[in-house]
């Protein structure tokens, strides 16, 4: 028999041979012997990844400033037919986030749109929304996705998985999206465009389902921003994303975070066989800050009254040492981006050939320069490329801040409000105002919770101007789609394609009943009311544009929550009383008045005492 050492040598040898042959690789590649070839080599031409980032800065009237961060990235190509269990299938991730791609592939999502928006965009002052509104959502969280599925139920199941996973990834309550909050838009969200884009179907027998849901007025905060930064390859540590900081970003008038992912295939006709597909993701962060407020807060983190020397009084009104009407806002301003965001931009994006780029849209009375190592540099087109690995800052100043770069006119203003009073019914009124000289064709998408039972028969249209007095609803509405609600299972979905004539203001109004909820359906803060998601208007002609109205707060009658227990107690007491009486009537002995009096007489204390006395006396023989 061989000695132990021999055995272990044989073991080791066998293992090495076994593994080497199992991996079809010659033994000389083993660790330590591998010296052939170069381990690391420098690519002289550089390494490029599909990632880009831009920052656009645009002053708005009344000392507001819009900063728009844009990040674009593509995933590594993949073959839809490959299963990840195949022995030679390997998924690669470089700049595209690993948190998103496996999820999209598992749930067959072809397009994903996620919005976190909060605040009020003053379109009358600030003009059009950034990206023509296609990257903004209604106040709260909004999610819509195009999902491939064999049936509606299958697609909904995937949608639910998607919502739950996103909820975990983004620390938001997206998991509250359920069947009663999910809608299937028909006329809105550009169905024609979808067809033209040729969205790939990985299984030809499947269909695409567009699903939409929103959580109105959901609070957005820094815990939602951090996951978004983690999706970027720079992780918020270099390039323009290093500016994004939760503490400053949410101290703003209006802010919006958007994520859009699309599936693209190299050759749409052949992707099923061996064509490559990839995901394209855009992430946007838009912020509107009121510069004087931010600067004031930087100076005095705890608000306190200004000293006399800092006060600017309105000279047209009486003023003295004790009385001062503050003058309207100053029109002179100097600030740098680090004042607004609390940080400098550290370094650039090195992952692609296009470096991080910052562009400022300003008029001649503004000055924008880039600050590098205490030196200020300007350019003709006010665009700056960050090429080096150092700290940058943007410095801006102006003597007349109200003169800002040309703001595009908004094609339409839409506002929606609640009418009526009381806790059992109410109404909704939407006002469309077309300030342009061209008719505007738009799609109207409204989703209302099931507890608002609308009466479509009460739908009325009213035009304010004399010229359009004779307009009827049918003149305006081209096509309509109405999906009535089912209690607890489906929300009301109302969609119109309509045309608003030039220079015209019309209003649409209808009424609804408020349903009573089940005892357990009320949220913990039942008296807060119920948030109703925004109305979504997509302009089809003359210019593509999308806007959302403010969310609404509907009050429902709130029950006294101790009521069920009170009811139990009262009804039980009544039943107990009835039973007791009945039971006594049946089981107690019936006696005549005379008998009763006799019994009473024998039971009185005096009688008993007398009996006792008699007994004692009789015993004593008296």
């Amino acid at each position, binding site marked *: 028999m061989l000695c132990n050492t*021999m055995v272990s040598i044989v073991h080791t040898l066998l293992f090495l*041979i076994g593994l080497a*042959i199992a991996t*079809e690789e010659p033994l000389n590649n083993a660790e330590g012997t591998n010296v052939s070839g170069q381990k690391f080599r420098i690519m*002289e031409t550089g390494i490029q990844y599909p990632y880009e980032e831009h920052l656009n800065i645009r002053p708005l009237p009344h000392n507001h400033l819009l900063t728009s961060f844009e990040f674009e990235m593509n995933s590594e190509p993949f073959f839809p037919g490959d299963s990840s*269990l195949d022995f030679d299938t390997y998924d690669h*991730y470089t700049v595209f986030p690993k948190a998103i791609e496996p999820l999209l592939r598992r749930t067959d999502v072809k397009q994903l749109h996620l919005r976190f928006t909060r605040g009020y965009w003053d379109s009358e002052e600030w003009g059009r929304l950034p990206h023509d509104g296609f990257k903004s959502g209604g106040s709260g969280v909004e999610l819509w996705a195009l999902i491939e599925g064999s049936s509606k139920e299958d697609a909904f199941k995937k949608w639910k998985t998607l919502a739950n996973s996103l909820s*975990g990834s983004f620390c938001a309550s997206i998991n509250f999206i359920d069947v009663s909050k999910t809608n299937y838009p028909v006329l809105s969200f550009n169905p024609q465009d979808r067809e033209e884009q040729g969205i790939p179907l990985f299984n030809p027998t499947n269909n695409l389902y567009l699903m939409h849901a929103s959580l109105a007025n959901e609070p957005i905060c820094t815990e939602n921003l951090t996951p978004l930064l983690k999706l970027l390859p720079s992780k918020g*540590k270099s390039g323009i994303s290093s500016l994004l900081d939760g503490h400053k970003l949410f101290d703003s008038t209006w802010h919006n975070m958007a994520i859009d992912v699309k599936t693209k295939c190299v050759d749409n006709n052949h992707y099923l066989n061996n064509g490559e597909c990839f995901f394209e993701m855009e992430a946007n962060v838009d912020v509107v800050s009121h510069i004087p407020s931010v600067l004031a807060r930087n100076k005095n983190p705890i608000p306190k009254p200004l000293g006399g020397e800092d006060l600017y009084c309105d000279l047209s009104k009486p003023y003295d040492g004790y009385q001062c009407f503050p003058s309207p806002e100053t029109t002179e301003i100097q600030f740098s981006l680090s004042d607004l965001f609390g940080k400098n931009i550290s370094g650039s994006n090195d992952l692609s050939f296009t470096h991080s780029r910052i562009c400022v849209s300003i008029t001649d009375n503004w000055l924008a320069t880039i600050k590098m190592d205490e030196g200020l540099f300007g350019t003709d087109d006010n665009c700056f490329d960050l090429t080096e690995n150092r700290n940058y800052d943007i410095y801006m100043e102006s003597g007349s801040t109200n003169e800002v770069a040309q703001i595009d006119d908004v094609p339409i203003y839409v506002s929606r409000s609640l009418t009526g009073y009381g806790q059992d019914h109410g109404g909704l009124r939407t006002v469309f105002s077309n300030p342009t000289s061209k008719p505007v064709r738009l799609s109207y998408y409204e989703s209302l919770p099931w507890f608002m039972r609308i009466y479509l028969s009460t739908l009325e249209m009213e035009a304010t101007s004399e010229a359009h007095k004779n307009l009827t609803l049918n003149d305006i509405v081209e096509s309509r789609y109405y999906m009535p609600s089912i209690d607890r299972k489906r929300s009301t979905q109302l969609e119109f394609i309509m045309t608003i004539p030039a220079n015209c203001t019309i209003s649409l109004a209808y009424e609804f009943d408020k349903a009573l909820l089940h005892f357990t359906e009320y949220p913990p803060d039942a008296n807060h009311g119920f948030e109703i998601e925004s109305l979504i208007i997509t302009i089809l002609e003359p210019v593509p544009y999308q806007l959302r109205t403010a969310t609404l707060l509907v009050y429902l009658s709130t029950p006294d929550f101790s009521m069920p227990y009170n009811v139990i107690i009262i009804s039980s007491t009544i039943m107990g009383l009835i039973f007791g009486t009945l039971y006594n009537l049946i089981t107690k002995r019936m006696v005549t008045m005379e008998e009763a009096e006799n019994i009473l007489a024998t039971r009185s204390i005096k009688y008993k005492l*007398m009996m006792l006395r008699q007994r004692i006396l009789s015993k004593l023989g008296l």
Partner: protein
Amino acid sequence: MSTLSLRKWVCAIFVLTYVVIGLPLWDRLTNIYRAPLPRDYIKSLHENKFYDVHVTIPVYIRSDVYKFPDIHAATQIQVNHLLNSKKQNVQWSLEILLFNETFIELEKAQGREYHIVTLQLDEFVGYNAAYDSKNTVVYFDDPTVARNDLPFFVAQTLVEHTFNVEWGYLSNGDLMHSEHNAVAVNYNPEIHLSINLLKGDGSPVDWEIEETLKTYFTPFRRFLSPLVNFTVDTSVVYFNDLNLHSLNNTDNITWTDVSHSIDLSELSSMNYFSEDSALNLAIVFPSKETNPEGFSFVKVDGEQMWESFIVPQWGVLVINKMPLEANTVVSKDYLDAVLYKFANDLFELLGLSTQFDSLFSPVITIDSFKRIRALQNMNKSVETLWSLIKLTEQFKQMAIPRDVLEKVKEVLDIRLQIVEILNNPAKGDDLSWDEALNLSNKMVQRSEEAFFDGQMLKQNFFPQEHKLAVYMPLMGPITIVLFTGFVSLFKETESGSKEKKESLSEEEKKEVEETKAVGAIEGVDEIN
């Protein structure tokens, strides 16, 4: 019938209705459905998990030069003797059979392979195992035959070497607690593997990972596929050096310091993939900005500028000494070495070998682990079922839906199927073991589904006290009225006879008249 006895009858009927019909009905209507789980059977299984298991592995023995007609019988005796020398925690034995070429060839054509021992005449005594088949070669010389040592030698080779995994788990050690349990991940038929290249800074880097994986890893995945299927992803992560730069200003760094400061939280790919289990390989390069001189604690060994170590139940960490220049391509040559090390460590992470004890032959070991995993899975699911029983016994008001019962029954059925395969000496080929393993995986899955049934938790939020609180306003008054009435009716019989006695004497009547006259009787209402 007198009025009193009629009243007693009525009262008794009321009380009887309340006790015999009312209370059971109330209990029945407000009770929670609890399916009858086979508690006793599961308890007996839990106490003696493998009482009906006797793993029988057929081994065919052949001799090329000499013909030994009774070698199989002689070896069988030796094998039995050897196996009986130790207490077995799971019964197992080898069935030594004479080699039948036609049968083996026929089976092989269908993809069924058996354990074969080949006896080969040589200059020395020894043994060897093929890496790609379940074939053990035993070398013997003439004196061995003369001394009749061959059967013992074959038996020893088989038990201690070919089946050393079984010998270790089933005879010598504990099936569930082996010494490499701390490092190995829990067995799962599907494991996700994440290969990450981490870089402390943000300058671009590329790696030839696809080619390396296809040459190295694809055969490896195929090879391990009967036991475990891998899904693999690779990623490049920037601005993450696992917090190793924090060790920059510390002197005399030990591996303990390194393991304390490592932050693996951002590499947990378990969140993104559907597999239940994940292993990682992280190749870390320091940042050129924070560590231009590299990590001082990484020791350079000749050409090799990196060190690797196993993070138990997580994966392998490869820490490079020097940072990468911008626009570097990490070549296949470098990755080959790293992946070779990783593949080695992977055996340990999967629990197939330990650092002290390497593999005898990969094919034979994997075959053995199919049986061990099947037994471990059986053990695990019986434990799960027992936990389910304990849980339901602890929470009396917990609902047990019919689904749970169905799943428990399915688990027990699957268990019997597995036992049938393991015990049957006729089923000793590759495919049978695969089937046993698959069934055992299914068994674990079903038992966990039964344990984690969401319906079971629902009623737990409604404890017994609440039920009582809700029904007390109704039950309380009714019970009090009913029973005080019942008791007073009993008392009435005694007081009734007293009254009869008392009403006898004329004298007393007089007294009553007198008291009445004095006005002693006041309106005290003592009649209820």
